[in-house]
Structure formats: structure tokens, C-alpha cells
């Protein structure tokens, strides 16, 4: 059986000591999970290692941690996969079979630490109430029934219920929250898991307050327009919830279906992007800001432009733009770009790919109407 070095981040708030790394050697099968490894150490050597866990099958959401830098569930991450993850990136050690350091072959190393963006209570246990659950409560996380409530069930399309199964399959593990970049900068950001939860109601035809929910989330400066599209939550999520995509759907529904022009200018900013690409083919950053505020000659844009001068100067200094490109368009969109826009905008219904159901590399030629969820 292969051997691994398991390094567990330990912290005991009562000891008065700082957090430290606790090293154990384990001999286990490659396909055993990181949780199996931790529990083996806990069972055989040290019962004081703190980690929440229960189902061991990736459904209860207890055991989210960071493993070699990446957040995820300890129970469905195989040791072998974990050992080869992220080596040589950032502070991670070189790959185990990399002998270039001259130290000889090291045991594959698996570092397990608590999730980020949440205070640590002890060892691998973080305070989810203080962050995650508070954010969930922020989005009015219950169905506000459409009236009248029918005597029997609401009659709603099967496709909608399959569609909301994606956010519904969130197990509230917090892995996405752990590494959300926006939340790192803005701790008040509602965040990926809670916004995915919000979509669960906005996508549910039985809910009566779609507009109110969307308005609230669009107007909140820490709401749907606070996400920076970093994809970390998509990578982190063990259940394919794809929180970023749920956020983007909230934006599309807010902006396009309900015409909510938020005070954060998120909606106009997004449209400015689309317009910008359609016109230039490439992102022309110096136009973006002005477009977001209604074009260069709009008084609001003037104010914003002045206030963003420092950013502009930085942009010039870093050669993201030159005085010339700031004023003129160096590039025109080639035909295929505008054709693509025409095709998509020409559809009578917006088509949303639901990767939850059709995301498998399907070799059966999928029928478009079946594999794509229509709104």
C-alpha cells in the first residue's frame, strides 16, 4: 500500500499557542479518502484531532476543508488525487516524485487545513454560523407561497423542478465560501452559496416574490453584482451547484426579465460589456466605464470618469491602455462575432444550458430541446 504524509493544521484556542502543523505517516490505498486518512490517525493515534464528519459519502456537508490548497470535502477526495494536487503552485511543495531539490524522493504530502473566510474554532472546525449561515439567512431562505395555495399540488413544469434541483443539491458545506475572492475583499458579500440558495426560490415558479427578491439582491451593494466571476466557487463545489452560474442567472433574470436597473450600476455595466465586445470584438477597457454610465457624454459618466482617474492613470502606467487607445478604437469586431450575437439575440426564448443534467460528456447526440432548459 502506498504511504502518505498527512499534515494537519491544528489549533486549540485554549492552549494560548498559535496554530501549527501536525505530521502523520499513513499507509493506505490510493482510493481511500482524505477523511479515511484523518479518521485512521484519530482512531489509532490521536483522538483529539477536531474535524466534523458524518455520512462519508459527500451528502451531509460536514467535512469541507482545504486540501493542498483547494477547498472541498475530505470524504470524497482520494488520497492519491490529493497528493498530486497543486504541487509547486504558490507555497505548495514540489511534486512528490520531483527529486530536483536534491533531498531525494519525499513521501506524497497531503496538507489539510480549515476552510478560509470563516473563523477557526478548533483544528479543522470553522465557525459556519458566523459567516455561512448568517448569509443564508440574508436571502429570505424560505418559499413565499404564490396565492392562492392550491388544494393539491402546484402544477408546474417538470423542467423547472429539475432546474432548481441544481441549487437544491447544495449541501451547505461552505467550500465555495472558503475561497470566494469577492468575500475576501468584501466580507459583507452575500456570497456564492447564499446566492445559489436565492436562485432556488427565483427559479421556483411557486414563489410569489421573484421581483422583490431580485430587486433586493440587485440593490444590495454586496449582492449579485458584487461577484467578480473568479470561478473559485465553481471549482470548489463538490455537488455541481455551480454557484457562479446561479448568480449570473439571477443577473440575467433581474436585468432582462424584470428590467431592474440597480443603483450599483451592475446591470448597465454588464450591458456595457456586451456592447463593448459586440463593437470591438475584444474588450476595450477604457470604454467600459463610460459605457456603464450611459456613454462618454453622459454627465454621470463624466463624474465617474473623474473619480476613476487614478485607475486610469494606473492603467496608463501599466500599459493596459495608451492615451491613443483611451480615445480611439483600435479594433473592430470581426464578422463571426457579430454573427454570433445576432444568432443568440435572434432567438425568441433565452436558452440556458443546465449543465447539472447535461454536463456529462454525453456521447449520445443530445437533442437540443431536451438537453437545454428553456426559461
Amino acid at each position, binding site marked *: 500500500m502506498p504511504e502518505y504524509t498527512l499534515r494537519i493544521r491544528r489549533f486549540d484556542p485554549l492552549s494560548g499557542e498559535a496554530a501549527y502543523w501536525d505530521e502523520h505517516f499513513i499507509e493506505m490505498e490510493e482510493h481511500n479518502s482524505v477523511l479515511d486518512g484523518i479518521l485512521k490517525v484519530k482512531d489509532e493515534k490521536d483522538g483529539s484531532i477536531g474535524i466534523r464528519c458524518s455520512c462519508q459519502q459527500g451528502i451531509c456537508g460536514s467535512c469541507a476543508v482545504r486540501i493542498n490548497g483547494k477547498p472541498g470535502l475530505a470524504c470524497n477526495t482520494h488520497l492519491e488525487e490529493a497528493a498530486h494536487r497543486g504541487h509547486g503552485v504558490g507555497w505548495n511543495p514540489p511534486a512528490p516524485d520531483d527529486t530536483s531539490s536534491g533531498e531525494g524522493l519525499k513521501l506524497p504530502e497531503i496538507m489539510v487545513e480549515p476552510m478560509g473566510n470563516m473563523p477557526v474554532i478548533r483544528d479543522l472546525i470553522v465557525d459556519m454560523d458566523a459567516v455561512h449561515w448568517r448569509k443564508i439567512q440574508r436571502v429570505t431562505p424560505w418559499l413565499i407561497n404564490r396565492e392562492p395555495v392550491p388544494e393539491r399540488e402546484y402544477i408546474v413544469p417538470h423542467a423547472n423542478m429539475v432546474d432548481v*434541483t441544481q441549487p437544491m443539491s447544495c449541501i451547505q458545506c461552505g467550500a465555495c465560501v472558503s475561497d470566494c475572492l469577492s468575500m475576501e475583499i468584501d466580507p459583507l458579500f452575500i456570497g456564492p452559496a447564499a446566492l445559489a440558495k436565492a436562485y432556488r426560490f427565483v427559479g421556483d415558479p411557486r414563489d410569489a416574490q421573484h421581483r422583490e427578491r431580485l430587486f433586493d439582491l440587485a440593490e444590495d451593494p454586496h449582492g449579485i453584482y458584487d461577484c467578480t466571476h473568479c470561478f473559485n466557487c465553481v471549482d470548489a463545489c463538490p455537488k455541481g451547484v455551480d454557484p457562479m452560474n446561479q448568480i449570473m442567472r439571477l443577473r440575467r433574470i433581474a436585468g432582462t426579465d424584470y428590467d431592474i436597473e440597480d443603483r450599483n450600476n451592475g446591470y448597465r455595466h454588464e450591458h456595457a460589456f456586451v456592447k463593448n465586445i459586440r463593437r470591438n470584438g475584444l474588450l476595450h477597457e477604457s470604454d467600459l466605464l463610460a459605457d456603464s454610465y450611459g456613454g462618454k457624454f453622459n454627465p454621470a459618466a463624466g463624474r465617474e470618469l473623474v473619480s476613476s482617474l487614478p485607475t486610469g492613470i494606473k492603467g496608463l502606467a501599466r500599459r493596459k491602455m495608451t492615451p491613443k487607445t483611451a480615445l480611439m478604437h483600435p479594433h473592430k469586431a470581426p464578422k463571426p462575432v457579430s454573427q454570433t450575437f445576432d444568432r443568440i439575440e435572434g432567438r425568441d426564448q433565452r436558452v440556458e444550458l443546465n449543465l447539472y443534467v447535461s454536463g456529462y460528456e454525453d456521447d449520445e447526440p443530445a437533442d437540443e430541446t431536451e438537453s437545454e432548459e428553456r426559461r
Partner: protein
Amino acid sequence: MPAYDVLIIGAGLAGQRAALAAAQTGATVGVVSKVHPVRSHSVAAAGGINAALNPEDSWESHAFDTVKGSDYLGDQDAIEIMCREAPDELLWLEHAGVTFHRDGTGHLGTRAFGGASAARTYYVADITGQAILHVLYEQLLKHHAQLDRYEEWFTTDLVVGDEGQCVGAICRDLRDGRLELINAKAVILASGGAGQVYRPTTNGLIVTGDGIAQACRVGAKLMDMEMVQYHPTTLSGNGLLITEGARGEGAWLLNAEGDRFMEEYAPNKLELASRDVVSRAEQTEIMEGRGFPDGTVALDVTKVPRRRTLEALREIVNIGRDFAGVDITREPIHIRPGNHYIMGGVKTDVDGQTTVPGLYAAGEVACVSVHGGNRLGANSLLDTLVFGRRSGESAARRALRMPMPSTPSACLTDTQRALAAILRRRGNGSRIGAIKKELGDTMNEYVAVFRDAEGLAKAHQIVRRLKEEAAGAAIDDHGSVFNQDVIAAIELSYMLEVAETIVIAAEERKESRGAQYRTDFPERNDADWLKHVDISLDGGPEPKVSYSPVTITRWQPEERTY
């Protein structure tokens, strides 16, 4: 000291449903759970929930299937209530927001399940338990003004007053180790099953039979403890469950020779016979040499259209991929019978009242008994909800009629002392993990699908020895913040007590019925054994056996074929 009209221990489906019902009846409610409510093991329920909601279906048909499934050990008055109330309960869930999947017309959709004469299992893909549990939690958040939640609080003991009635519970806040006596006019146990007594099991690490042992300690009667369900399709090795929904959607069982062997054992219902029947069939195939070398047979999900599998059985696609390295949409997966559920538990009436006044029980911890000798798939979620609600309502009604009872003065210090004794232990005894492993292996060997007197006696002896060892098991953690070591020691003591009652009941019932198959008494014997085996401490230190009659209303016992 916090005090409530109704205190609920456990926040799985039964506990949360009870909490909402009690609050709605006008009671003040506290809910204690040793894990965050959405981590409760109800989250793992995959396949669905039964209800005769379709106009073509009838509650009588559902009830008959349940009675037959129980091998006539279920109490028919309770089964009648469960099946009659199922449709309303399901609609309540739907209105609360559960995203049940629909049929082509937008009405609630169904899938077929084992032992059922109609497709009456309602589902959310194969995350039904999760979807319901999370929606109930949404409701708990919605009604936060009426409900106090004690999340990550561990109940160590029930507290009994001078007149023998339950007056509260002692709980430990896992975050800081603080002990609190919570006073209550009525206590509802909803702390789930005891799967961890076995190894492997489909149950999570937290499912350690706490409530069954706690109730037994304060004198409550247990019932049907010998009835432990082995699910036909679990992964070898780790014991993870492949939902019955797979067979409901059309998957086949094949032996190593490629034969669809259920044709032999249950020519009509095939893969969808009762679980006890299918598990015995598989075990027989394996023992007679027609299984695979790893002691398994195969489940062939490729019989289900691939798109349907991806849409409706996605979770087991993930389980196959992550935990067995098999793409179930393309190849059969090896499975075998594995520990899954305990039909027995704390004996209650149809309103959840146990034999201790003021103490109620609902869900897997309880035994009403609606499952008798064998539970039908998708009847457990229904049981947790219907009897969770009924207990919540009746506990609240009791509470609203009475003043707050006083609590015995010494109870908190007794528990404090017991905990301090555990904390004083050092690293020199046996390891908790090792005792637990031996217990699980023992139960899985001798108290499983097939049992006999000799094996049971051996198991009994081992469990007794382990009980002694456990009393001095090593403790590494002496702190107060999230001390999981101390909790594990307490849970181990519960598990061993539960294991002992299972073994005693299995030794007692000298016949084969439902999940209890005695190779030394291979026939069902209605003349002598159409009765429940009850177990209680009855004031002494050792569990004692007594009997109670099975309630039969309209379905007389018949021979059972599928």
C-alpha cells in the same frame, strides 16, 4: 435554566417536523441536535417518500403492502394512520417548498419502489431526503421566533422527575463544553437510528443509537429490536447505499453467471420484492458460489436509459464514480446486502407517547410499529414525518395543560461527575475505534441476514466483554472546545447497550419473520410468535424481555410471496 413546553432531541426529519407541529400548536419549543440540523442523517435518504395520492391508488392498498412487507408484525392501527395521513403530509411538504419532480403534465411524479403494488413513491431526483430536510430547515428559519435551536449540542441524559415522568434533558454545548439542564414539560426523542452498531453500514458516523439507549436507561420499553434491515444494494467495503430507486427505475440484479436470479426467488415482483426477500436471495446466491469473488452480486443500471439515470439517479452516479470507480451508466456495479435501518426502537403509541410519561419518540429511534419485521423502501421518511407531526402535536397538547415540572436537584452534578470521570481517563485503555470496529464486525457476522443460536450467543458474549473494555477506553482529548473524544466515548456506551438489546431480542425470537431469519428456526410461526418482543430494564441493571400483542385490524396473516 432554559425551559420549554416541548423539548425535542434531534433535528432530522422527525425532529424538525415535530418542532414545527409543536410550535404551530402553540407551545414554546427547543430543538437540540448534536450536529447542525442539515447534517442529520435524513439527508442521505435518496429514493423517495410513499403516499397513495393518485386517485387510482388507495391508502388501503398502501397499508396492505406495508402490512405484508412487515411480515404481519406491524401494528395495523398505526399503519392505517400512516397511510391515511400520507397524502396530506406530502402536500404539506409540497406547499412548504419541497421541489418534488413532476410528470409530463406538471403534477407530482412518481417512481416504483420495492414491495409496492403501485408506483407511489414521490421523489426529488435521488436527493429526496436532502431536499425535504433542507426545506424543513428553511421552515425552521422562517419560524425562528417560536423555536430555539440548540445546534451542535449533545444530549447526554434524559431527566426523570419524582413521579417517574420525563422533565427535561442534560445537554452539552460542543463549542465550549458547557453543560445545561434544559427543563421541559414534554420531551420528544427524535435522535435517529443505530446503524453504527454495525460495520459496514449505510448510516453516518453520528447514527449511534443515542436515543434508544437514553430512553432505555430511564425505563422506557424498547420493541422489535431484533428487526434490523439489510438493504440489498450497498457497496462492498464502505457499505454506501445504492438507492432502491435504481431498481425502481428499472435496474436488474445479476449473479456472476449473468443470471437475473430474482426470477427464482420472486417471480412476480423480481427486483422489487421486499428488502428482506431480496437481501436473502442475494446472500443465498453469494453463499452458494454464484456471486463474484469479492462476495457480491451485480446491479445493472445500464438497463435504465442513460439520460434518465443522469437526471434522476445522479447521486448514485457520483457515488459509483467517487467511491467505487465505476460509471454505473455504462457497466454493472458490485453490491451486496448491508446494514441499513432498524425497525425496532423505543416503543410508542400512535401519538408518539412512550411508556415513560412525558417522553415521546418519533422517527427511526421509535417503534410504533409501522414497519414490523421489514420496512418498505420510502416508508421511513413518511414515518418520520407523520409520527413526528403527531408527536409534536400531542406533546404540545400535554404541555399546554400542565405547569413546568421541577427537576431533581442532583441530576446535573451526576452528569458532571460522569463526564469528569471520562475526562480523567488517559491513553492507556483500549482505543474507542478498536472497540467500535470489533462491535461492528461482530454484529455484521452473527446478527445479520442469517442468524442462529450459536452465533447469537457468541455475539452476546463479545458485546458484554466490549462493554467492560469501553468503560476504561483511552481518552486523548481533555479540553472543552469541540471535544469529540469524550462524545465518542459516550456514544460508544450507547452503541453497546443498543447492540445488547438487539442480540437479546434476536435470541428470544425463535422463528423466522421479516429481517429475522433464524437458520435454526427457518419457518414463520404465527401460533407462538405473532407478537412483539419488548425489552426494558424494569428497574434492574440487566435488560428483561416481555411480550406485547400485534394489533390486527383487517388483514389476517397470510403466506408471503412476491
